[in-house]
């Protein structure tokens, strides 16, 4: 329970870094959760993200699982609220303001400028995640197969995730 204020502080801060998607905040989440606060190990964070992929809903609901592991049910609720409420309020406010700034010349500059940066941040997060997730040639093959399958087919990606989990049970022990 004594971790609750720290959980609120960290996840509220992380919520403002999710520019372009939750993955953009992953590098900072790793720093805060693993290196600074020692709530989880590197491997546990990868596992928690993986369970987030298998569960319905936004994959960044994984923050609730981090809260659960650190401070039980209260931690889960606090983390989810701290992570989603600030960014939700900000999006609502900025969305309203953005519509009013229709004629502002810098509006287009901000949109055009931040789009590639958001993609770069997310890909940076993905690389950091991938360094922990891709540990041997079998994981390389699983990642490549999923990449190709998602790009080439219309099959629900959840099926690939679940299949990889089952393959992992037999092959990655």
């Amino acid at each position, binding site marked *: 329970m004594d971790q609750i204020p720290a959980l609120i502080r960290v996840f509220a801060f992380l919520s403002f870094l999710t*520019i372009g998607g939750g993955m*953009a905040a992953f*590098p*900072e989440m790793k*720093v805060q959760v693993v290196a600074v606060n020692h709530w989880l190990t590197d491997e546990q964070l*990868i*596992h*928690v*993200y*993986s*369970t987030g*992929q*298998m*569960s319905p*809903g936004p994959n960044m609901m994984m923050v*609730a*699982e*981090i809260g*659960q*592991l650190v401070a039980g049910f209260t931690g*889960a609720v606090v983390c989810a609220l701290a992570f989603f409420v600030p960014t939700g309020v900000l999006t609502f406010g900025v969305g309203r303001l953005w519509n009013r700034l229709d004629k502002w010349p*810098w509006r*287009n*500059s901000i949109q*055009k*400028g*931040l789009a*590639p*940066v958001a*993609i*770069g*941040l*997310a*890909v*940076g997060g*993905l*690389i*950091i*995640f*991938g360094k*922990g*997730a891709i540990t041997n040639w079998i*994981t390389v093959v*699983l*990642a*490549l197969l*999923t*990449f190709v399958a*998602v*790009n080439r087919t219309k099959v629900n*990606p959840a099926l690939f*995730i679940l299949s*990889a*989990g*089952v*393959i*992992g*049970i037999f092959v*990655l*022990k």
Partner: protein
Amino acid sequence: MVLAGIAYGQHSVRPWATAGLRGVAAAATGLLAATWFQIGKKSLKGVYDAVFVVGAILGITYFKAGVPLTLLVVGGFAIFAYRPHVKHETAGEENEEWIRSLH
């Protein structure tokens, strides 16, 4: 996710659970890479965009600058690069104004 957290807390020491999650993590990497590949293909255009994508990736992975600093520096440059163009008066307009001032 709370249930997933409880289940993970109870079974994370079991080798089969860890192995399954390693498989999921690998597939998640491929899935995310495919998602961002598709988004990038649709929304990125030109050399500037490529430079800012690479800049943000290097800021996070190579320089380990952290998300806030990378966003501030690379984002600042990107917005400046796409700044609104100031409309300069052309030489012809200046000349016409000068001729009008003679009348």
